C-alpha cells in the first residue's frame, strides 16, 4: 500500500454507522419544524390580510347584514330550535347525564 493510499484512507474516514440513522431522523425533525413554522407564518400573514380586507369593507358588510337579517331571522330561529332538540334529545346526552 502506497503512502498516497494511506493518506486517502485517512482523509476519507467517515462517522460511525451507529449515529447515521439518528442523525437523519434529527435532520428530518428539524425540517418538519421548519415546514410547520413556514406554514404557520403563511397562515398568519393570510389571516392578517383577510382581517384588513374585512375591516376595509366593514361599512358595506354592515349594510348588507342589516338588509338580509330580517328575512333570515325565522330560518335561524328554526335552526336553533332543531339544534336544541338534537342536543337535548340525543341518547348520548341521556347517557352522559346518567338518566337513560
Amino acid at each position, binding site marked *: *500500500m502506497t*503512502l*498516497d*493510499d*494511506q*493518506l*486517502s*484512507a*485517512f*482523509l*476519507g*474516514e*467517515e*462517522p*460511525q*454507522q451507529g*449515529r*447515521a440513522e439518528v*442523525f*437523519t431522523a*434529527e*435532520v*428530518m425533525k*428539524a*425540517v*418538519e419544524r*421548519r*415546514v410547520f413554522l413556514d406554514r404557520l407564518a403563511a397562515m398568519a400573514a393570510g389571516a392578517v390580510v383577510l382581517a384588513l380586507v374585512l375591516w376595509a369593507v366593514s361599512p358595506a358588510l354592515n349594510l348588507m347584514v342589516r338588509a338580509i337579517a330580517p328575512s333570515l331571522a325565522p330560518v335561524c330561529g328554526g335552526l336553533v330550535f332543531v339544534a336544541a332538540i338534537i342536543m337535548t334529545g340525543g341518547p348520548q346526552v341521556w347517557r352522559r347525564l346518567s338518566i337513560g
Partner: protein
Amino acid sequence: MDAALVRQARAGSQAAFARLVAIHEKPLRGFLRKSGWIDADDIAQEAFVAAWAGLPKLRDDQGFRAWLFGVAWKKALSQRRGAQRAAARDEVWRGEQELEAAKEVGAEDRMALETALATLPEDQRACVTLCLGQGWSHAEVSDALGLPLGTVKSHVTRGRERLLAVLGGAS
C-alpha cells in the same frame, strides 16, 4: 440519482429529502470533522435544513452535492466568525462524533497526520479532504468552496506534500 430526488424534494417530498440526507450525511460530517470543526454534526444539520429551505434556488439538480457542501462550508465559517459557540462538550458527545478509523493507517501515523492536518490552513485542509479523501475533482471543490480553480490545485498539491512528508517520517 440526486437530480430525481432533488426534483421530488423541491416539490415538497420529505421522503425524497430524507433519502438525500441519508446519502450525503456521512461524507459531509466526515468532511467537516476532518476540516477541524468540533461541532461538525450541528453544522451539518443546519446545512441540511438550510438546503431544504434553499432547494428552489438550486439551479443544477445534478450539482446538489457540491452545493450542499458549499452551504455547510459557509455555515462553518460564519459560525466561527460569529458569537462563540459553546466550547465545553462532554466526552460522550465527543465519542459520538468520532470517525471510523481506516485500517490502512497505523496509530502512530494517525496521530502524526492529525497533528499535521490541524496545522494546515482551513481552506487547504478542506481542499485536501475533499480531493484526496473523497475523490472530488478540483473543479467541483472550487465550485463548492467558492475558491479559484488554481488556488484549489495549489492547496491540494501543497497539502498533500506536507501530509506525505509527515506520513513518510512517521513510518
